[in-house]
């Protein structure tokens, strides 16, 4: 693995070939907001919050490999503005009511919005009528709070290996489903492992019986599992 040098916000920094821009940028202490990215599962490049300017062109840092001589800007006024707009779009898309949400105070969408200074939504709330699925014995799925980051799909497919979760439909009508769009509780493939719940950034997936602001999610289990499995870090 060879060392490469690139310019980050005017400063020369170094990284390794094969690293994504996001990794390099975060290693150098610059914080980029992300929602669909999660260490341990594949990249999706869907939320577009980690957009950066590379040699004047916009690209998502999570899916761009760092290259020698890149000129990267992470916090131009335009980028910051676009990030807020993307967040506004997300808040307007479904019914995100933080005040009565089980994840209030622990939600990634909420904290990213707060960090980006998104304090109001200028777009029309689309207010779709979406159901909740509380058929699972241990967990609840609330489509109203889903941002379609598909972390649940990826962790279920890549780590648990069950491929219970899928997306149905497309565009604005996309929804996460289990198996043939049936109730989660009746899914023949679900192992009830709960990984999807833990990786979900919002209150779309949560434990049965959680009440307002009560749900908190573990985030460190994934590197632990994957490190143990792949890199054989467990030594017992």
């Amino acid at each position, binding site marked *: 693995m060879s060392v490469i040098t690139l310019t980050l916000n005017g400063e020369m920094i170094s990284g390794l070939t094969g690293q994504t821009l996001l990794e390099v940028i975060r290693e150098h202490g610059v914080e980029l907001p992300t929602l669909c990215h999660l260490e341990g599962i594949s990249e999706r490049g869907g939320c577009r919050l980690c957009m950066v300017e590379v040699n004047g062109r916009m690209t998502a840092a999570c899916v761009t490999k760092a290259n020698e001589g890149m000129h990267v800007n992470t916090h131009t006024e335009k980028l910051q503005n676009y990030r807020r707009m993307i967040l506004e779009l997300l808040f307007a898309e479904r019914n995100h009511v933080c005040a009565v949400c089980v994840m209030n105070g622990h939600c990634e969408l909420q904290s990213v919005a707060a960090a980006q200074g998104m304090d109001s939504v200028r777009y029309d709330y689309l207010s779709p009528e979406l159901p909740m699925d509380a058929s699972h014995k241990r967990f609840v799925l609330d489509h109203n709070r889903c941002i379609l980051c598909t972390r649940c799909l990826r962790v279920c497919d890549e780590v648990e290996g069950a*491929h219970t979760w899928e997306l*149905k439909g*497309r565009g604005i009508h996309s929804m996460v489903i289990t198996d043939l769009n049936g109730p989660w509780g009746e899914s023949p493939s679900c192992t009830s492992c709960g990984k999807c719940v833990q990786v979900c950034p919002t209150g779309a997936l949560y434990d049965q019986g959680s009440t307002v602001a009560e749900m908190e999610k573990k985030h460190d289990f994934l590197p632990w599992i994957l490190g143990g499995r792949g890199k054989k870090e467990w030594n017992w």
Partner: protein
Amino acid sequence: MLVTKQQSDYAPPATEDPRMDEVARAVKRFGYQQDALIEVLHIAQRAFGYLDETLLTYIARQMKLPLGWVYGVASFYHFFSFEPPAEHNCVVCTGTACYVEGAQKILDLLEKEFGVKPGQVSADGRLSVTDFRCPGSCGQAPILVIDGELLGRETPESTIARIKQLLANDKQAKEVAP
């Protein structure tokens, strides 16, 4: 061998339906390759008219694909339908040329006359209206496809007349039949 409930869940459902054989043959013809899923779905929809749960489960088990995968693919593409088709189907092209030539007026009048919006089936289940973007016959816009028959240069009035005729013919046929 002890067959647990879970295991039987994963076996293809047994069926006597000969149309299912057609699907099975298609899967076999594509060598059980997972990338032929869309082709298999096309064949299944042609055989059954729509895709129901049993059919999708069958295909998933045959092709060794997760259930969600099959549903996800089928629901992504507009061509696949999960509802049984109506007796008669009127497809209105809403491509650009047809839009310019007033396809919307045809849709509006269809809604007014039969109470059916694009994507809906009439209350009696006899007529469905779909919008479709572009069978590629823009020179003859606006274009209709009624029960598979391609028609060009339609007006709202001629469309309504055709469909009324179609529905009336059925009625006569039914009256004669018994």
